[in-house]
C-alpha cells in the first residue's frame, strides 16, 4: 500500500446557517462576508503544517489539488502548495502527490508540464503527476471553459504534456486548442521517462478507457465511501479485464474520509460535528453549478439521467438526518478506535482492490490540534496494520521509483514505540 494524506484546505468557520443563507459554497459565495485574507493566510499555513506533520509522522505521500472561488477547498494554485511541501520534505522518502493542476484550465497547458518538472527537480524525483479534468464549477463557471469542450481540451493538453516531457527534439504542437511553435521544455523531470500519472475520475467509462490506454493510475475520488464505490470499482476492474492491462491494484486509487480517536465513542464525540459541517456546508453546491449541460458527453448524460441519478439523490436526501453511526455504517466515513479503523480500512482496500489510498484526515471545520491528533493516531496506530497489503504480489509502478521500497519508520514513530516499551 501507499497511503497519502489528502488536504482540501477548507474554510473552517462558516456560519451555522451557511447552507440556508447562501446559494452555494462554490462559484458565488461572497468572500468578504464569510472570511478575511488574514484567515485565509492562517488556513493556508495550518494546511501546510498539517501536511508536513503528516509527512513527518510517516504518511507515504502528501496530496493537494486545485479548486477556485470556494470555501470547500481553496487551493487555486496547487503547485504553490506543492513547492512548499517539496522543500519542507527535502531528504525524506515522502511523495508529493499533486492531484493536481487542472489540465483544461491551464493555458497553455505546457505550464503544467513545466511546473511539475520544477517540482520533480526540487523534490529530487518524488512527485506524482495528477491530471484532473476539473470540476464544472472550476472549469466552466470560474475559468470559462465551454462545458462541451472540456474533455477534448483535456485529452489534447495531456498529449502535449506527455510529449513535452519526453521529446528529445524541439517540436511544434498544432492542436485544436493550443498551438505552440517550438516546444522545448525546461526543466525536464528527474523521473524518466516521466513522473507517474494519476487520473482522477468519478466513474465514467471514458475515463477508465483513457487511463487504461495510457497505463495511468485511475483514482476514484468520491465522498460516498467504499460501499458505494464498490459498484464503480467492480466495473473498473471488469473493464480492465477486457484490456491487455494487468489487474495490479496499484492501477487504482481511492479517497476515503478517516477519523481516528482512542475509542469509537470518543471518535464520535470529537469528529461528528466536523463531518456534519463537511456534508452540510463544504458540499453545499448549487445543482446548476455542479452539472452544467455539456460537462458530460451525450452518452454519459443519458446514462446518468437514466440510471445513476435516483441512487445518488436518494443518499443526498438522507444525509441531513444522519448521525455519526450512519456515516460509519454506510462507509462514507471510516471512523473510530485505531482497531476499528484498521479493520474497516483494510476491508475497503481489499474490497475495492486499490493500492494507492488517499485519506482525508482533515475534514470540514476540524481545528488544527484535532487534525494533528488524527494524523498521529492514523500514522502510528492504523498505518502499520494496512501498509503491507498487496506488496508481496504487486509492484507500485505508479509511485516515484526511488520511493517504491518499504519506508523507514519515521523517527517519531520509533520514539513512540520506544516510549511505549514495545
Amino acid at each position, binding site marked *: 500500500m501507499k497511503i497519502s494524506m489528502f488536504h482540501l484546505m477548507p474554510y473552517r468557520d462558516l456560519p451555522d446557517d451557511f447552507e440556508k443563507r447562501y446559494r452555494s459554497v462554490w462559484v458565488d459565495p461572497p468572500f468578504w462576508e464569510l472570511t478575511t485574507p488574514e484567515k485565509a493566510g492562517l488556513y493556508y499555513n495550518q494546511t501546510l503544517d498539517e501536511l508536513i506533520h503528516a509527512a513527518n509522522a510517516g504518511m507515504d505521500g502528501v496530496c493537494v489539488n486545485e479548486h477556485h472561488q470556494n470555501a470547500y477547498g481553496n487551493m487555486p494554485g496547487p503547485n504553490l502548495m506543492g513547492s512548499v511541501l517539496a522543500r519542507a520534505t527535502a531528504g525524506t522518502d515522502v511523495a508529493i502527490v499533486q492531484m493536481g493542476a487542472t489540465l483544461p484550465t491551464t493555458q497553455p497547458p505546457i505550464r503544467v508540464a513545466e511546473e511539475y518538472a520544477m517540482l520533480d527537480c526540487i523534490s529530487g524525483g518524488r512527485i506524482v503527476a495528477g491530471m484532473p479534468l476539473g470540476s464544472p464549477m472550476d472549469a*466552466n*463557471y470560474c475559468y*470559462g*471553459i*465551454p*462545458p*462541451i*469542450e472540456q474533455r477534448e481540451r483535456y485529452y489534447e493538453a495531456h498529449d502535449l504534456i506527455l510529449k513535452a516531457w519526453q521529446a528529445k527534439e524541439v517540436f511544434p504542437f498544432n492542436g*485544436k486548442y493550443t498551438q505552440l511553435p517550438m516546444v522545448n521544455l525546461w526543466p525536464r523531470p528527474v523521473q524518466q521517462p516521466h513522473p507517474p500519472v494519476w487520473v482522477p475520475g468519478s466513474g465514467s467509462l471514458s475515463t477508465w478507457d483513457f487511463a487504461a490506454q495510457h497505463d495511468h493510475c485511475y483514482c476514484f475520488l468520491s465522498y460516498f465511501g467504499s460501499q458505494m464505490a464498490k459498484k464503480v470499482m467492480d466495473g473498473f476492474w471488469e473493464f480492465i479485464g477486457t484490456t491487455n492491462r494487468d489487474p495490479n491494484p496499484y492501477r487504482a486509487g481511492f479517497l476515503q474520509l478517516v477519523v481516528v480517536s482512542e475509542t469509537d465513542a470518543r471518535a464520535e464525540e470529537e469528529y461528528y460535528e466536523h463531518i456534519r459541517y463537511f456534508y452540510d456546508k463544504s458540499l453545499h453546491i*448549487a*445543482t*446548476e*453549478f455542479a452539472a*452544467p*449541460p*455539456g460537462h458530460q458527453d*451525450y*452518452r454519459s*448524460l*443519458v446514462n446518468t*439521467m*437514466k440510471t445513476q441519478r435516483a441512487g445518488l439523490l436518494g443518499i443526498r436526501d438522507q444525509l441531513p438526518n444522519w448521525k455519526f453511526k450512519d456515516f460509519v455504517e454506510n462507509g462514507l466515513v471510516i471512523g473510530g478506535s485505531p482497531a476499528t479503523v484498521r479493520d474497516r480500512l483494510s476491508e475497503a482496500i481489499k474490497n475495492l482492490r486499490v493500492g494507492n489510498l488517499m485519506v482525508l484526515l482533515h475534514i470540514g471545520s476540524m481545528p488544527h490540534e484535532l487534525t494533528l491528533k488524527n494524523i498521529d493516531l492514523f500514522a502510528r496506530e492504523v498505518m502499520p496494520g494496512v501498509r503491507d497489503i498487496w506488496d508481496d504480489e504487486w509492484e507500485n509502478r505508479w509511485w516515484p521509483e526511488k520511493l517504491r521500497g518499504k519506508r523507514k519508520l519515521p523517527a517519531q514513530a520509533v520514539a513512540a514505540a520506544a516510549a511505549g516499551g514495545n
Partner: protein
Amino acid sequence: MVATAERTETVWRDQIETRVKVAGSGPPVVFFHGAYGLQWDPFLDSLAASHTVYAPEHPGTTPGAPDSLEPLDNLWDLVLYYYELFDALGLDRPAVIGHSFGGMVAAEVAATNPERISKLALIDPIGLWRDDAPVTNWMAVSLSDLPKYLFANPEGPLGQMMSAAIKMEGDEALDAQIQVMWSLACTAKFVWPIPDKGLKKRIHRIKASTLIVWGKQDRIAPPVYAEEFASRIANSRVELIDGAGHLPHLEQLHRVSALITDFLKE
C-alpha cells in the same frame, strides 16, 4: 395544429445530419430556435398559415445524431454550415427568424453573406453585451427560478407548464429533459461563457430589412438590447412587447405572430 413534415439533410461533407421540421405553404421562412432546442409551438403554427416554415435543429440536437456538432469548431463554421443547409433545402434567399441564441445565429448568417437573407426578424436575440446590463447566464439559473426569468408572468399558463415539465417523471419526460440538456450543451459551445462573440464587429453588414421584437419584461436579455441591435442595423425597427419576457412569441402569441406575419408580407 398544422401538419409538419420532417426532412433530414446531411451536409458538411456528409458529417452533419440535421432534421428540419417543415410546415405550411407560401414563401419560405427559416426559424432558428433558442438554447433549449426546437419545440414545434403555436407561434410556428401561426406562421405556417401564410408561409412555408423551415425549422432546423441546431447541429448535435437532432435525435440519433449527437455527434453532429463535432465537425464545427466555432461560429464561423456554424454560419457556413447554414449556407450549406439552405442550399440543401433549396432556399436561395429566405426570410429568417431567430429567437434568443437562434437570433444571434440569424444575425451572424445575415451579416456574413447579406445576399442570402431577404428579411430578418429577431426575437429577444443575444449576441451583444453591455457591462451595465449583462445578459443572464441561463445555465446558472436554478430550474425552479427559470420561469421567473423567462416569463413576464411566471404564474401564467406557460410558467406553470414549464414548472410541471421540470418535475415530470417517466421515460418520455426523461427523454425530453435529456433533449433540452443536450440542446443547452450544443448551443453553449458557441456562446459560453459570455454571449459576445464578435457580432458587434459584423452586424453593420446586415442589409435585410429587420424587425426586432423584444419582451419588455425579459430578464435574460434585458430590453435595452433592442436599441443596441436597432442602432447597428440600417434598415430596422423595434417592437417592444408588454406582458412578455424572453419568449414574447409564446407569451403574447397573437400580437407577435401578427407583427411578424405582417412584417414578412411588407
